[in-house]
């Protein structure tokens, strides 16, 4: 019999809890084509809607004639701003406190803006109808260059704001100005610069790009006229927020709105906001009494819903000759497009960009961000990053390299010299954050040792000499990036969305046979929540992860939560899960004490059940406690075993990492090769190392794409020139480099399980590593900063500008 008794190790392994490389349970359906996405929702009598879009970046809409469209067989209705005005929905509020046209109201402000919504019996008829809607435009001068937005003679974009000198975030300086946001001590910072021995100043742009998830934004809206209920299936990263927004703007009772996020094919920030398609599909369903589906195509996704970045960051660092930083000054010109539709926490017009002091001990800093309107699509979403954190990380990591170059110091050495030291945590940054924990030096040194950094620098030196002798046309760059993220929005003291605190939630119900269901306010879009959430519960309550079903995305069944973006799920919902599980465990302990006839305090937790201290044979498994919860609870106790937790985090979490990229560039063609990419991530406690590795691979691939070519580019007339995957760089497996991953573990001191979140770190840290590699490659030829993206032709142009072809 004793041979049959599982060992402690076997009992722990059987749980597949924290730290287990558990295979993703959702992949069983995804890899067999059995996922259930919005476009899989097919309802009887369902209609299809699609948009007439503006070919102009800026134009007055003189007239819309739908008479020919309505003659197309299958076309039932053409909705315009005039239609929407009858239900007061021609404009909608944005998450950033601005308003946005749902359909063109008198003007269009960006190319591919929604002008009319054609509703038809099938998608083909809808598109036939679109081609028959006649819109008469009077083109107006477009404003494309953000640096010209606040010129005195710049065209007036937002006529609806005429005379409004104050916006949602304070005074407006100009008709195209949205807000100015300042943080930090200006006087102290100016003084630091005045007495600085060394300063650098560079305008560092992070170009406009797009999250471009595999599945585009889409929804099915079904209004039941009899019950007065609206059901929306949609690609929502935050379904509860969508429900509240719909209740507020459509004036429907919130209990009669059912929002369902089924399987989602990637979000990356693209699916946080509310888009005209959702409003139009809902209105069309209310008007026709039938379900209406709206599905974006790729061009619409890239050109109309939610760009990311477009930050132009004039950055200055003050330092001593020995390379100790003494001050940071950043001014950002933030191009928000035609409407301010950033999906940031409401009080944060530039997100958490004030993490821009990075991993370094800046005694003082000052930041000012000016948000402006241009004739481009609205958005400004957090593309696989916490709000504006990737812009901040790029800004400081590029600037530190520029400083190193000016000082003649090695960039890794400069970083080591200026890191916040382990004993300084919790660390209060000059721009107002409290960093929870970190050990930067250990991570940086581990990265340098692993890649043999010193040898790489020697090799680079030799190659540079050979290049100067004309023996090679290849140059080599070593990109170092050390990032600190700020994730887990967020504590109610500083984070809300439309007044709702950014907590998150978990409800766990244990069933009699030792199984259970757990529901959260988050929503996986590929992150693997069904796998990892169950692992947290497994370790907390000793029930195998396989016996816990995780369900998210249905607002009728899930507890209210703020959704999944900004790496907030693990820091916030992950904590709620642990806290709910601990409530279960506390009740289980009372039941076990009753059944084992001892006092609760005489019990100790042992992997998967409670044991009487000193009497190892007196043990009750959690499985048996579940059964007991439904038939023999202590007198006076309610039966059942379930718990709900709403977790308001005391602080953000601060994951960090050290990335090193080794790259070669052929100056004759600009073609680059990533020779090596090493990524060390410290995300605190690691829930599932395999999923972490997958997350890092995915985020690095996006970072590679962004740094090396992925952009939303406009020509001078405001036409998007990168509106399809032909020109918008989406790397395939062939282009994607090999990734080496590594880690250190510095748990978060305030998180119940010490986890910090990881999904977005590789995007945040990856972009500066690639860009620093390119810039490092060219630096010996005399350049200090080359703007992204670093695609082939721009690399060639950089080489040419540096005189590489003059001798030839």
């Amino acid at each position, binding site marked *: 019999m004793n041979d049959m008794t599982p060992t402690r190790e076997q009992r722990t392994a059987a749980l597949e809890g924290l730290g287990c490389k558990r295979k993703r349970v959702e992949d069983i359906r995804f890899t067999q084509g059995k996922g259930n996405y919005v476009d899989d929702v097919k309802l009887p009598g369902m209609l299809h809607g699609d948009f007439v879009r503006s070919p102009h970046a800026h134009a007055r809409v003189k007239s819309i004639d739908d008479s020919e469209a309505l003659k197309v067989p299958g076309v039932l209705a053409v909705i315009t701003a005039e239609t929407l005005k009858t239900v007061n929905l021609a404009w909608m509020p944005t998450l950033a406190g601005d308003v946005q046209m749902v359909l063109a109201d008198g003007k269009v402000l960006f190319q591919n803006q929604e002008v009319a919504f054609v509703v038809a019996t099938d998608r083909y008829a*809808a598109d036939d109808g679109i081609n028959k809607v006649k819109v008469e435009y009077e083109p107006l001068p477009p404003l494309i260059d953000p640096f010209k937005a606040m010129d005195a003679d710049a065209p007036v974009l937002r006529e609806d704001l005429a005379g409004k000198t104050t916006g949602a975030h304070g005074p407006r300086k100009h008709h195209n100005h949205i807000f100015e946001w300042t943080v930090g001590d200006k006087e102290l910072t100016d003084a630091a610069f005045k007495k600085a021995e060394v300063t650098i100043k560079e305008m560092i742009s992070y170009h406009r790009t797009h999250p471009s998830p595999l599945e585009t934004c889409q929804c099915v809206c079904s209004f039941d006229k009899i019950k007065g209920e609206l059901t929306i299936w949609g690609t929502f990263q935050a379904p509860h927020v969508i429900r509240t927004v719909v209740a507020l703007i459509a004036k429907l009772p919130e209990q009669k709105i059912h929002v369902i996020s089924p399987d989602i094919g990637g979000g990356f920030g693209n699916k946080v906001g509310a888009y005209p398609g959702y409003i139009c599909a809902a209105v069309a369903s209310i008007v026709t009494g039938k379900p209406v589906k709206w599905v974006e195509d790729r061009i619409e996704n890239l050109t109309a819903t939610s760009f990311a970045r477009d930050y132009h960051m004039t950055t200055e660092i003050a330092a001593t000759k020995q390379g100790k930083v003494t001050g940071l000054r950043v001014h950002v010109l933030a191009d928000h497009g035609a409407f301010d539709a950033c999906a940031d926490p409401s009080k944060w017009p530039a997100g958490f960009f004030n993490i821009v002091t990075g991993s370094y001990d800046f005694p003082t800093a000052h930041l000012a961000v000016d948000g402006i309107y241009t004739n481009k699509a609205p958005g400004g979403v957090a593309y696989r990053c916490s709000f504006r954190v990737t812009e901040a990380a790029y800004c400081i990591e590029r600037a530190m390299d520029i400083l190193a170059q000016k000082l003649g110091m090695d960039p890794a050495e400069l970083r080591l010299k200026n890191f916040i030291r382990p004993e300084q945590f919790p660390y209060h940054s000059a721009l107002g954050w409290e960093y929870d924990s970190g050990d930067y030096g250990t991570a940086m040194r581990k990265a340098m040792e692993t890649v043999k950094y010193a040898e790489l620098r020697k090799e680079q030196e030799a190659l540079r000499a050979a290049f100067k002798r004309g023996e090679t046309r290849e140059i080599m760059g070593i990109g170092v990036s050390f990032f600190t993220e700020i994730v887990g929005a967020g504590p109610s003291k500083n984070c809300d969305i439309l007044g709702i605190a950014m907590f998150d939630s978990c409800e766990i119900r244990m069933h009699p046979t030792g199984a259970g269901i757990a529901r959260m306010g988050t929503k996986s879009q590929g992150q693997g929540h069904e796998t990892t959430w169950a692992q947290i519960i497994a370790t907390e309550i000793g029930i195998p992860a396989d016996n816990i079903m995780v369900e998210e995305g249905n607002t009728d069944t899930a507890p209210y939560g703020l959704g999944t973006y900004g790496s907030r799920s693990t820091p916030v919902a992950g904590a709620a899960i642990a806290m709910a599980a601990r409530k279960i465990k506390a009740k289980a302990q009372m039941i076990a004490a009753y059944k084992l006839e001892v006092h609760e305090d005489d019990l100790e937790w042992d992997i998967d059940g409670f044991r009487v201290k000193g009497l190892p044979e007196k043990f009750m498994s959690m499985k048996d406690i579940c059964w007991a919860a439904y038939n023999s609870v202590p007198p006076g106790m309610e039966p059942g075993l379930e718990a709900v937790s709403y977790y308001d985090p005391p602080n953000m979490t601060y994951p960090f990492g050290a990335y090193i990229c080794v790259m070669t560039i052929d100056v004759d063609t600009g073609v680059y090769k990533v020779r090596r990419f090493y990524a060390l991530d410290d995300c605190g406690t690691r829930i599932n190392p395999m999923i972490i590795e997958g997350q890092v691979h995915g985020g690095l691939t996006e970072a590679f794409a962004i740094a090396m070519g992925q952009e939303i*580019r406009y020509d001078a007339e405001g036409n998007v020139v*990168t509106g399809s995957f032909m*020109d918008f760089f989406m790397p395939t497996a062939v*282009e994607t480099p090999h990734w080496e991953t590594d880690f250190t573990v510095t748990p978060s001191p305030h998180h119940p399980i010490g986890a910090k979140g990881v999904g977005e770190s590789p995007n945040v840290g990856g972009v500066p590593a690639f860009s620093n590699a390119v810039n490092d490659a060219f630096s010996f030829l005399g350049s200090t900063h080359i703007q992204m993206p670093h*695609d082939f032709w721009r690399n*060639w142009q950089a080489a040419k500008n540096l005189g590489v072809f003059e001798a030839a």
Partner: protein
Amino acid sequence: MIPGPFSYHRPATVADAVKLLSTLGDEARPLAGGHSLVPMMKLRLATPEHLVDLHGVAGLKGIRRDGGKVVIGAMTTQHELLASDEIAKSIPILQETALLIADPQVRYRGTIGGNIANGDPGNDMPALMMTLGATYRLEGPQGGREVAAADFYQGAYFTAIEPGELVTAISIAVPPAGHGHAYEKLKRKVGDYATAAAAVILTMSGGKVATCTVGLTNLSETPLLADAAAKAVIGTSLDPATLKKAAAAAEAIMVPAADARGPVEYRKHVGGIMVMRALQRAAAKAA
């Protein structure tokens, strides 16, 4: 990205296909692999009222040796070119080039006939066909005719095809044994059209270039034969100065468009680099 309405036809013979194309007129388009036409239809940049699907037409597929020539049916897919022992043996540059077209899924479906007949300057096979001196067999309402690849391309999407005509086969004289060949293509990623590409077929004699042909892809509205570049290397051992001269001669005839692949100056510059690299690699392969 939703196409407009169209009628679908699936003829069984070349004669039927030609008859359909000639009677239906301008509003009919033949459908081969569909990798150019179908996306254009989805964008409604092409709105043909009739599609004449060639997949049911007998005798349009296959690769056969005909004396000193290889004859390839127009509906032969890129994948079939890659799988052919005859092509591997006699015209290996066709396989090298086909491998640089898109990805395996596209190559299973995409045909050589579609690639050469669409007149898309981004397609890789047209410049190669000019370099190889290929001729195209056209069948039309007035009967059949042969057109040299070099005479076929008139402008972007404009070719020598007359209304109602169909390309049915491609005929290529087998290059001499021991010839050197290379197709150098610079592209941003798998599936992209060339930023610039160059095809080279040459023979060497005593360490010097004896004969040479150079073709250029996506550097003008049509594929180009870089005759002056080819002439510049004859009789040389492809020393650096000669290579530069050839590149300069090739660049002189390039008129690429500025697009997301880069400005005109860049595309011409890398066009010259592709010519130099193709010449060097072809020479290294030649016996």
